[in-house]
């Protein structure tokens, strides 16, 4: 009887430890650090700017720890300059 109870307690502790370690590894898999501060970037359909679309789609910004907010400016490219001056973007392409 006694052994049986001990076994149960031991099993519970064991399961608890496994669950905790799984949770920890899951958390580590997501990120080592709190989410990076966002970077708002203007995107536009243009050869010199293709790289932003591609890197965003491929997850290459995330790979280096950048939290890029991809913002479509295709409706009016020059309007994104004014938005930049107004502080609504961190990075835009200027022509």
């Amino acid at each position, binding site marked *: 009887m006694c052994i049986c109870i001990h076994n149960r307690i031991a099993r519970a502790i064991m399961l608890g430890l496994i669950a905790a370690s799984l949770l920890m590894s899951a958390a580590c898999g997501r990120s080592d650090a709190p989410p*990076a*501060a966002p*970077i708002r970037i203007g995107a536009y*359909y*243009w*050869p*010199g*700017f*293709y*790289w932003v*679309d*591609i*890197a*965003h*789609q*491929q997850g*290459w*910004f995330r790979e*280096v*720890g*950048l939290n890029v907010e991809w913002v479509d400016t*295709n*409706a*009016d*490219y*020059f*309007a994104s300059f004014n938005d*930049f001056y107004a*502080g609504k*973007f*961190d*990075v*835009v*392409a*200027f*022509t």
Partner: protein
Amino acid sequence: MAFLASDYTTGAEALIARPGITQVRELAGKKLGLSKGTYLEYIWTTVAQRAGLKAGAVQIVDTPAEKAHALLAQKSVDAILTWEPFATQALTLVNGVRLFDTAQTPGLAWAVYAVQPKFLEQRADDVQALARVWLRTTRFIQQSPEAAYAIVAQVNKKSVDEVRVLTTQDRVLDLRDNLTAFSFAAGLDSLHGSTRQMNDFMVERNIVPTRVDTARLFEARFVRTLQANDTPP
């Protein structure tokens, strides 16, 4: 503050007129649709001067570059100055005439990536990381253009052909080009040289009051760090 040069156009901006107009100087007394106060107006001023047109000889109608072709189609203007793919759309819509394009003036229209000065100050490592991603992606496009264009086509809801054609009128820059672009050379292959020429032009014509100090516009350290740490694949 600019930290990366992306491209300069080699024919992507075009002056498209309605049928019947065959030369730039025939635009005297007519209406031209373009986005005022932008580099398109600078291109127009250059073109007008070459054609012997006086400032003010043509009435400028302010329009976003993305909507200029619609103005021409509605006959609200006689000509437009815009970039691709809108220039070719205009040409097709009105069976128009291509009077000029920037293939005649390579190096005139640069695009650079600019970052907020405060952001640059506080998050220089993130700016460097952005530059690293730019380099990786630029090399991917050079090495696997079709795969790259397929992604761009999907994101922008275009055909791969359209995405590819657009690249024929624009020179996308690599790391080597950027090192030249951020040098203090006087020619149009340097941002400093190109900006000084545009600025001189504008000061001479009283479009802007003063000369700019180009050293305050361009920050070379990010492309130089890319070069210093580069191990080409």
